[in-house]
């Protein structure tokens, strides 16, 4: 599958889905006017990728400074097939990065983490300044 790379805007995150290496990244902020329109194609690609019989480990990295509730829903939708794949024995790691002291994002990560039982969900505190 072709790698998906989308540059960040002030309202949507940077996307880098490298299917070949099994590395997925979302970073920046996410509050697009229409979250379904932005995340829909990504979810579709992810599902297609997971449906193909491959077994290399998957690392899905999320480093969002802010996301609105629609984006949270969309993230949930992205995570569900990953958890399902992990349930089927695939090595899946979610890396949830949050800035030191950002309890909102950390809390959201904890909320997401509680939904996973098969995939590994790492909460990673970062301390480097973004700006």
């Amino acid at each position: 599958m072709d790698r998906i790379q989308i540059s960040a805007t002030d309202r949507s995150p940077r996307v880098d889905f490298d299917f070949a290496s099994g590395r997925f990244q979302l970073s920046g902020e996410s509050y697009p006017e229409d979250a379904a329109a932005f995340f829909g194609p990504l979810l579709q690609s992810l599902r297609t990728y997971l449906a193909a019989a491959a077994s290399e480990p998957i690392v899905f990295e999320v480093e969002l400074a802010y996301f609105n509730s629609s984006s949270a829903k969309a993230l949930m939708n992205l995570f569900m097939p990953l958890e399902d794949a992990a349930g089927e024995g695939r090595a899946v790691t979610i890396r949830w990065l949050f800035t030191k002291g950002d309890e909102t994002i950390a809390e959201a990560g904890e909320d997401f983490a509680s939904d996973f039982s098969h995939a590994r969900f790492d909460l990673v505190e970062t301390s480097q300044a973004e700006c």
Partner: protein
Amino acid sequence: MTVESAAEVPSPAIAPPSRRRSLRGGGPLRGDDFLTLAGFTDVPTATPGTMRPGALRGSARGRDLDSLAHTLFLRIYPVIAVVVLATQIGIAWVNYNDSLRLYTERANLLATLTAQAIARPDWSERPDVYKTQIQALTLDPAFRFVRAWNADGGLVMALGDMPGGRSLELIRASTEITVPDRAKPVGSLTLGLSAEALRGNAEKQAVLALGASLVLMLAFVLTLHANVRRHVLAPLKRLLIAMREVEHKRWSTVELEGAVRASNEIDVISSAFNRMVEGLRTGDEAKQLLTELELAHAKLADANRLVMESIGYARRIQTSVLPDRMALAGAGLDVAVLWEPLHQVGGDYFWLERLDEVSVIVVADCTGHGVPGAFITLIVATALDRILHERGLRSPAEILSALDEMVRAQLRQDGRGSESDDGLDCGLCIWDPAARRLSFAGAGISLTTVTQAGMTRIKGEKRGLGYPRHGSERQGNERFRTETVTLDVAPGDTFYLMTDGITDQMGTTGGQRRLLGHRGVSDILLRSRDEELGPQIKTLETELAAYRGAENRRDDMTLIAFRPTNLA
């Protein structure tokens, strides 16, 4: 004169320019004839005083291009002709004088030779002896006459006619006949030679000079004309054509390489013209783009005004759906409300109502903001109204469950096929003053309390209300269920229900760009806990803005602060 005939008089704008062709009536095409053949005509204009499109053409056309050669000829030729003629006349004059001098010398020589030949003391007595000598003079083709006189002045011999007076055509040579032995001359001799040949020569020279001048003139005219035409007129015509094209905003440039060779100056003019055309073209394009841009901008401004008007109207509707902020006055509660949609209208909603003995306080954050969010708030408002008044529910947990069901039914998320993936977070409190008890249930919204013990946050259910339940069971395919939390209230206890728009303030703190979060908001509320609720909310708003700095707000904001009073 009738009106019709008056109308037939051509307007000056379209009247053909009057030109005199007296000099070269049937001559070659004029510059403007050429342009007419090339398909250019003047654009008539009805309104006088306005600059007509052909203004440039007027000046360029009025001056006949061919008259340039004519003017050059008239200015230069007389000078050349006068110089040539003067030179020829000078040469002729010198030649004539030289010839005249030679003739005179010849006449003198002949006369002297003849006089010496007949110089004898007695020559006049025997004219027969010397007659042959004198007759020899008649052999000269220019001979006219000869006269010989003796010492006394008596005519001895006469040949030919001697015209009376002086004549230009006659050269006279007189000499005395002297004998060495005698002191006095023994006679005199006068010879007349004709200068007619000289005059003939002079005439011939004059005719030659005139002819040469004429030939020179002809050659000059032809050369001048050919060169002006080739090196000046042809490139100028191309320039004119290009200018006319440019007048009609067809951006054509002039390329003089190839067929037409231009003199250096015209080359320079042509490049300057091309640069000008390029400048005009880009200027015109820029102007057109600017016009289009202005048009688009005006349309956008129009569309924006329409949308803003429409949204302004929508805001009136939404605010009229919201309760009076003083709805709980007299119910034993101090209440302060902050409701600030991101875009005039929004997905945040609150409800305040006194129902019999209890007061209901609701804060909801529907998915989306702006107009889409506002739509959901109307559904929530209707559903809540039915739950509270028709079904008469008073338990926060039951109310939320009912709300969940009704919203899903309304948005057809209950399996009847719907595109809606919408829902809401909701926090709901019921204050029972008689029991001094506050009960709370939340779905995605927590209750923040500030009591003597400090600040606590009672989280509701993680999951929101609404949203279709298809798919994973983790999302909960079943009805929304939660527990009601009941709190005993002490005097001074203050409670806050807020949407995530309050806590999700992006800002930079300690070099790190991150959200303010619940902790940040709680800190602000704790710092200002001694203020009245109204001022405290103002303080909060100010501090939130300060934290954001240059960042924009991300979401609608709603916060309701309430503090039970009269708790003796």
